[in-house]
């Protein structure tokens, strides 16, 4: 594989005309309606919020090195973990893959000139900017201490921190999500090139379609929840205040009706990236294409029906909890379908160990751990023991970092040459992937044990016997931080100095690899016509030299 690409890239020249030099000046960026440029605007902004969220994570881990609370006051610590979650969830993970890679590659993959509503696409970035700026403002004024879940009546009645400001920020940011979702669904329905039937769509598209469904149908419920909280704080309407006859558990239902599916907003696009990477670097079609496509839809639909598993310890009836527990286990089925099918795709594939493939293989293992511990937590009896412990923290970090973030980073490495025309590969990308994998596991695996032993989340002090595991976790976080910092350097370096990629550096199938890198303003010279199924890889004789012959003769 690597020999193939090295052999071919030497002949490529950097294209003279492309979307990056189609127009100049700051206005051409801030007023652009080109989906590729909007991707880059988003890429820069979500990276900033990832860095801020990461710094808060560092502060948490630093405090937890010692059992005593020696770095922060309890109230400060509440603000630190809340801001970590708010920044990471609302301003990094939710827009991360859809607004960057999705924005760039959905039109390219289906052979369109742009998304369906280019102005709405730009508006979505401005909504994101407004929402995130409000959250930043609240951060500099002192932040929020309620936890990212904003549970009432603490958030509505007692908290003196900047709840309203952050809530308005999240409300505005919701528009950005909804605009993106509407845009993607309309694009996928109506903008496909001739011959691009539904079952010729790359699985990346299916995953984003399912994600968009959640964005469109879930986000407004969070919006109304925030509005009800806002009315309670501003006008003392008492929707969630027990003293006025309000029902705090209603808040939890409404909140999790969005916020559980929001987890699938984070993980589904990542699964889409996984399918693309695995197909490319095994040089095989994804095993059970239809099942993987429908499992995305299955996850999105069943995902809407499981929110009650966050309320097992509230006043929710036991019968409702039983149903929610059952539905939670049901959502593991389409997730497992994906994992097994990726596994089957690897079988006898001609595997190339590139950096994106490292992330994909890491994803497979980590997502499986994260998913299975999720099933454990969905079990009624066990959840009562594990509830609000570090076991839960470790579980969702395996999904959100080991799953969503690995997909984001893998996808970024995979698509980087297409986006900028130059490759970032070699020793440092490999090293970074390795550091992130090792650092991640060292950070979060001890937290499973801590949680199982009973250490509660959101506390800044803990009994001395938990110190060894906490120090391990902090050490892992340090390794993780170095792993995250490396790409900043080598990726920026590659923009100028990386080797010229050519249209298809990975030898991948798909329309996005047929146009030049970086693509021209309207993506394709002429309207592409699709004649074959996705992930059609031809025998090595047609692909060029350098394929591992043994692997192919075996398959």
């Amino acid at each position, binding site marked *: 594989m690597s020999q193939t690409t090295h052999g071919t890239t030497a002949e490529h020249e950097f294209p003279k005309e492309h979307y990056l030099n189609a127009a100049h000046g700051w206005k051409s960026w801030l007023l652009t309606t080109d989906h590729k440029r909007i991707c880059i605007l988003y890429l820069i902004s979500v990276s900033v919020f990832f860095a801020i969220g990461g710094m808060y994570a560092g502060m948490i881990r630093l405090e937890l090195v010692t059992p005593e609370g020696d770095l922060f006051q309890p109230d400060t610590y509440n603000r630190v973990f809340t801001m970590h979650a708010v920044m990471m969830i609302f301003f990094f993970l939710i827009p991360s893959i859809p607004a960057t890679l999705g924005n760039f590659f959905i039109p390219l993959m289906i052979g369109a000139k742009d998304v369906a509503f280019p102005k709405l696409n730009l508006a979505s970035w401005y909504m994101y900017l407004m929402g995130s700026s409000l959250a930043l403002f609240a951060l500099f004024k002192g932040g929020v201490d309620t936890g990212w879940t904003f549970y009432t009546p603490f958030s509505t009645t007692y908290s003196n921190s900047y709840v309203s400001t952050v809530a308005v920020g999240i409300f505005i940011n919701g528009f950005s999500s909804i605009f993106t979702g509407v845009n993607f669904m309309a694009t996928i329905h109506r903008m496909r090139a001739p011959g691009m039937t539904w079952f010729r769509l790359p699985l990346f598209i299916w995953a984003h379609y399912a994600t968009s469904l959640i964005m469109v149908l879930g986000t407004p419920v969070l919006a109304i929840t925030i509005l009800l909280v806002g009315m309670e704080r501003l006008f003392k309407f*008492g929707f969630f205040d027990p003293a006025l006859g309000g029902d705090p558990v209603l808040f939890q239902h409404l909140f999790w009706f969005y916020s559980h599916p929001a987890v699938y907003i984070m993980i589904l696009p990542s699964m889409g990236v996984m399918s693309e990477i695995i197909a490319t670097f095994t040089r095989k079609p994804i095993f059970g294409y239809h099942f993987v496509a429908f499992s995305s839809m299955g996850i999105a639909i069943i995902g809407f029906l499981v929110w009650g598993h966050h309320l097992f310890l509230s006043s929710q009836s036991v019968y409702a909890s039983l149903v929610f527990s059952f539905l939670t286990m049901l959502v593991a089925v389409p997730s497992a379908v994906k994992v097994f099918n990726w596994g089957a795709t690897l079988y006898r594939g001609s595997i190339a160990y590139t950096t994106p493939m490292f992330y994909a293989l890491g994803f497979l293992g980590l997502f499986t751990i994260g998913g299975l511990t999720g099933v454990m937590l969905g079990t009624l009896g066990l959840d009562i023991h594990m509830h609000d412990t570090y076991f839960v923290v470790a579980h969702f970090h395996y999904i959100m970092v080991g799953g969503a973030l690995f997909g984001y980073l893998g996808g970024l490495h995979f698509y980087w040459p297409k986006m900028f025309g130059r490759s970032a590969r070699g020793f440092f990308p490999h090293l970074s992937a390795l550091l992130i994998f090792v650092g991640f596991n060292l950070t979060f695996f001890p937290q499973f044990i801590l949680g199982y032993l009973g250490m509660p989340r959101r506390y800044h002090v803990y009994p001395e016997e938990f110190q060894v595991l906490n120090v391990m976790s902090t050490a892992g976080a340090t390794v993780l931080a170095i792993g995250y910092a490396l790409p900043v350097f080598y990726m920026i370096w590659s923009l100028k100095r990386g080797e010229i990629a050519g249209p298809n550096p990975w030898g991948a199938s798909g329309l996005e690899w047929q146009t030049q890198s970086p693509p021209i303003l309207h993506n394709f010279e002429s309207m592409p016509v699709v004649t074959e199924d996705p992930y059609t890889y031809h025998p090595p004789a047609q692909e060029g030299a350098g394929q591992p012959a043994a692997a192919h003769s075996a398959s």
Partner: protein
Amino acid sequence: MSSQALGESKLHHHFETYEQQKETSFLGMWLFLAQEVMFFGGAFAAYVNYRTLYPEAFVAGSQQLDTTIGFLNTLVLLCSSFTMVYAVWAAQNSKGPKKIALGLYGTIFFGGIFLIVKYFEYGAKFAHHLVPGYNFIPPVQDIPHAESTEIFFALYFGMTGLHALHMIVGMGIMAVMLFGLHTGKSWAIWDRKNHNFVEGFGLYWHFVDIVWIFLFPFLYLLGAHPPSF
């Protein structure tokens, strides 16, 4: 009749045909409306929750609302939908900017009447000490959870307020459309090929009407029989 001498309606660069542009635009609008359904759905979920918890208080609350005014306002809103349909028809059949504008002016007129009536209804609540969190005194005392009538009025103000806000936004958009029509802006040329803006906005306006069609029975009619029964 067709005084569309201003020029051709616009086909945006990323579409191949007018047909594709139209279908895409309506699909986007329907998705946006699906989003709106979920948005109001959250508020209706809260309504169902509290109505189940405090049925007597909600009946007591309903009886404080004036069903006659509510009914007449419903008719006014339906009239505004009729004029909206007129504007959409004029655009679809290339009847020219004047007729489109006439339909929009009519819609703004009836929408405005609705909001003015709503203003006086709200004023009456302030006078009768029925504003939650401000001057609320439960209107009926001898029922279980009498104090929870306040939640009914919180929902009343919250839900009708959001509905009114949607109308105000809609009227703002109509003002922009009228501005475009009167100044002959290229994006405001609507004819047989491209009337997507008018028709898409029409869908929005009808949706806002339908929300009221649900709000009216939920808030005014359920349990609103006279106390003497």
